[in-house]
């Protein structure tokens, strides 16, 4: 669905955008990424909740705890699944952007490299959001509590001032970053931050499982 955003936006207002001299990838990201990223993150939050709900709904999680598997293994499996889904979604979005470039910026090609890098960058930055939303989903037995918490966090992320580096490190805020608008050294900072955050969230999940086990 998020892939349609640039297409629709272009279809309605293409004169404004094609008129400017900047790179089409740059223009398209600038104009559409806020909305696309929000849809992506909301999708991730929703999927995380639904996935964990199927564990909690008929107490399947109890059965799993009585089998020789580790609960953390389940968490990683689900993370892998959602990350795969994100890849698919981003790929579709990339197709949307390619379509826009091809259709409206006829004379202005040769940006495929930049486009590819942008989407890989978004892919890396969305990983902490995936892990964090699964963490939230696994923390609450009730799907609606988890969904509510997740959505509130997403809206908080959209309201954070974009200029502040520290604030934009919030897991749900990171996918809103745009590759072409970020300075080279900041790009590596963001990627390092994404990796560190992922590790921290995974440790938090381990602690959650452990604490829950001890308190039962």
């Amino acid at each position, binding site marked *: 669905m998020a892939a349609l955003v640039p297409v629709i936006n272009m279809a309605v207002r293409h004169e404004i955008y094609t008129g400017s001299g900047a790179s089409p990838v740059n223009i398209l990201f600038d104009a559409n990424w806020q909305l696309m990223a929000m849809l992506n993150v909301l999708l991730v939050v929703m999927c995380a909740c639904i996935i964990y709900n*199927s564990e909690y*709904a*008929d*107490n*399947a999680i*109890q059965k799993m*705890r*009585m*089998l020789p598997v580790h609960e953390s293994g389940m968490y990683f499996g689900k993370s892998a699944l959602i990350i795969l889904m994100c890849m698919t979604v981003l790929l579709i979005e990339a197709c949307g952007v390619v379509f826009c470039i091809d259709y409206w910026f006829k004379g202005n090609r040769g940006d495929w490299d930049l486009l590819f890098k942008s989407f890989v960058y978004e892919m890396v930055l969305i990983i902490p959001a995936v892990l964090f939303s699964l963490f939230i989903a696994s923390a609450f037995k009730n799907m609606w509590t988890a969904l509510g918490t997740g959505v509130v966090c997403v809206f908080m992320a959209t309201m954070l001032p974009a200029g502040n580096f520290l604030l934009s490190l919030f897991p749900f805020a990171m996918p809103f970053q745009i590759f072409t608008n970020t300075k080279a050294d900041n790009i590596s900072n963001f990627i390092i931050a994404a990796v560190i955050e992922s590790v921290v969230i995974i440790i938090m999940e381990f602690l959650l499982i452990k604490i829950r086990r001890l308190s*039962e």
Partner: protein
Amino acid sequence: MNIIETRNLTKTYAGFTAVSGINLHIPKGAVYGFLGPNGAGKSTTMKMFLGLVKPTSGSFVIDGMSYPENRTEILKRTGSFIESPAFYGNLTGEENLDIIRKILGLPRETVDEALEITGIAQYKKRLAKKYSLGMKQRLGLASALIGKPPILILDEPTNGLDPSGIHETRALIRSLPQRFNCTVLVSSHMLSEIELMADSIGILNHGRLLFEGTLDDLRRNAALQGYPSDHLEDTFLAMVEEDNRQLKSGV
């Protein structure tokens, strides 16, 4: 030889003692009946055996192994069914068993075997959330029996079944040690039910073990202590009442 032994096993919830220093001895190859009124601590004890609940103090050994070091080993060898059945509602009965089969690394035909034994083979393509209570219960039983584990822990397995289901399940449990060469720990509220299945029993009340031994032991014991002994159910009720009275006067 005992396959499960506990030593002063205790579980305390925020000042309330659910299981209080019990010493169980569950012989290998037997059906062991675990008996007690509501809230006696039967499920809590079984959950401790499965690592779902951490003991506050005391310890237990299952087949020479203990938690948390041998968690995987113990769970591989134990089929279990605790309180209400636990399953994925949006999958069919067959798919539910298939997940368990894959986790346990069992051959493919074990799924059909388990469905057959518990009598839900004809409903295997139906979503588990659309099962009736008794069918869910049977699915839970199937998920415990799959792969014929050497130890079975069944918490009130006949709960919610129709009379013929109760009868079948009792007969099944009775026959398990011979058929699958396994040990069964089964809980119930009713001595009359346990009487039909178990070789040895343990009676629990308010987290304390009132009696442990064979049914004959119980009869002899009852006669000695002046409890009614012609009907074992009466013996059980009298024992529990007496214990409750003592508890009250103690407080």
